């Protein structure tokens, strides 16, 4: 078995192994180290001979490494004695295979692992790195590629995160009922950060990185399976599915962004839309939360045959609702875009100018982008051009920047009518 085969098994087993070992040793950092050692061993030894049960092999080896590490730690001698007694001494190492995982408990343990990885004591970057590493089973190299940072940076984030978890004694358990909703929100926001990095890369020369978005969707599906009664989990999954459904149409052959209005809707992934709508239906059980509302907006686009035939009135209402449950200047800006489509650019410009007056999105390229579009639609060409040029200067994504510059030069000419800059 080659490297790719080991990686494939690890992706499937990572969360279960780290979760089971954390439960077994009570030490998340040690569990993660032991699991990584097992993968490193697999990379060498599977090349010579493939195990009959690769998942069981990884679990048994990781468990052995965990016990080795505990043995080495003299300070933990006492705990080792307990452990050995716990597993009836039976060559305590080595024999823990799939069957030893308590199927009733492993789901909660994987869920607990997600809560630990996304714990509020960790920095946002560390939460992302740790979640992808231990729950998603990605290597440091893969995480570094996903977030366009160096491998040592990712490793440092993970090392620091493990130290923080140990130092602050983050318990390995599901959060108590009183905290559950808030902590779940923390997990969802980590998954959404990963998704948005893939759906609109914050830097670099590519607009979309579907492989990064895929990791978030996969994790959201896992979370939906483990916490099926949480509407917002389904809301996030719906949002991701419906947004990713448009990926095939969002970039041209040369990688340049294609705006929603210009997308060939026949390229949208019908299966992903169907999955997104199904997840949205589950999210709607008790009224929509912030992710569910965003998913409902994405659904309004995904089910519309064209920009003109889109129910913009409904989208305005959904943005208003979103602005109430999760106030944010970005939501107001998007509402302005929807208002422009539903009622015309003048009303929308008033919303944008309010945002600017309150200085609620300083330094963002989005405000001048939208303002420039609206001014162009109102025929105020010189102002439109200045706004779009400002937007280009503020934009970090090269692909988006070149589109903005093109529009800036177009807006100076009495060319075709400008369209909403959504997507």
């Amino acid at each position: 078995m080659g490297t790719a085969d080991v990686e494939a098994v690890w992706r499937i087993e990572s969360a279960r192994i780290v979760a089971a070992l954390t439960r077994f040793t009570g030490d998340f950092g040690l569990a993660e180290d032991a699991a990584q050692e097992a993968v490193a061993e697999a990379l060498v030894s599977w090349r010579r001979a493939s195990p009959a049960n690769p998942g069981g092999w990884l679990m048994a080896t990781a468990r052995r490494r965990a016990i080795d590490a505990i043995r080495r730690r003299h300070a933990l001698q006492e705990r080792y004695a307990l452990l050995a007694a716990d597993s009836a001494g039976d060559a305590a190492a080595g024999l823990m295979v799939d069957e030893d995982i308590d199927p009733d408990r492993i789901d909660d343990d994987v869920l607990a692992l997600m809560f630990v990885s996304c714990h509020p004591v960790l920095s946002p970057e560390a939460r992302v790195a740790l979640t992808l590493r231990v729950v998603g089973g990605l290597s440091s190299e893969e995480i570094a590629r996903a977030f366009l940072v160096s491998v040592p940076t990712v490793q440092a984030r993970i090392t620091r995160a493990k130290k923080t978890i140990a130092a602050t004694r983050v318990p390995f358990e599901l959060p108590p009922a009183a905290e559950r909703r808030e902590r779940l929100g923390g997990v969802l926001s980590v998954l959404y950060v990963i998704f948005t990095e893939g759906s609109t890369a914050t830097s670099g020369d590519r607009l979309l990185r579907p492989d990064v978005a895929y990791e978030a969707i996969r994790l959201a599906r896992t979370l939906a399976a483990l916490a099926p009664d949480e509407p917002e989990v389904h809301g996030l999954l719906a949002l991701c599915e419906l947004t990713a459904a448009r990926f095939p149409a969002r970039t041209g052959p040369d990688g340049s962004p294609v705006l929603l209005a210009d997308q060939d809707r026949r390229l949208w992934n019908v299966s992903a839309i169907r999955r997104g709508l199904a997840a949205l239906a589950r999210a709607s059980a008790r009224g929509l939360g912030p992710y569910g509302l965003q998913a409902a907006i994405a659904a309004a686009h995904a089910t519309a045959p064209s920009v003109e035939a889109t129910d913009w009135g409904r989208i305005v209402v959904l943005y208003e609702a979103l602005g109430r449950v999760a106030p944010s200047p970005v939501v107001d800006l998007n509402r302005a875009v929807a208002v422009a489509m539903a009622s015309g650019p003048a009303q929308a410009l008033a919303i944008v100018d309010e945002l600017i007056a309150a200085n609620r999105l300083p330094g963002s390229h989005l405000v001048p982008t939208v303002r420039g579009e609206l001014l162009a639609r109102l025929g105020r060409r010189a102002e439109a051009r200045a706004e779009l040029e400002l937007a280009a200067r503020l934009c970090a994504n090269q692909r988006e920047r070149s589109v903005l510059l093109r529009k800036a030069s177009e807006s100076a000419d009495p060319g075709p009518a400008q369209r909403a800059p959504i997507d």
Partner: protein
Amino acid sequence: MSTYMLIMRGTDESNAAMMTSIDEAMVATRTFIEEMVRAGVLLAAEGLDDPARGVVVDFAGEAPVVTDGPYGETKELFGGYFLLDVASKEEAVEWARRFPAVRGSKIEVRRVAGADEVPADSAGSGHL
């Protein structure tokens, strides 16, 4: 990231073997499906009814000829599929290895082509 289809292919013998312990086979398959759901990879799974109740539409001649199943000389029968969203071909294969199969059956692992993968000779003719 790619979508793969695991295509279940049984023979008369392996299908018969499965039917002798169908309850266990169903339980094992359900466990397998649940694992894929929890791993966030399963998109769809379907099992096909008895091929004897199927119909074959044959395009060998000018007009399609419809005959009642089974397929005739076919040795391996398509019995169902799993559609997976996985990180790599190796991961699709690893899931296939884990299927609680009866001896004699096979799983074919095939990648699902994306919407943007139009064969070169039909480029420009639009999409279906």
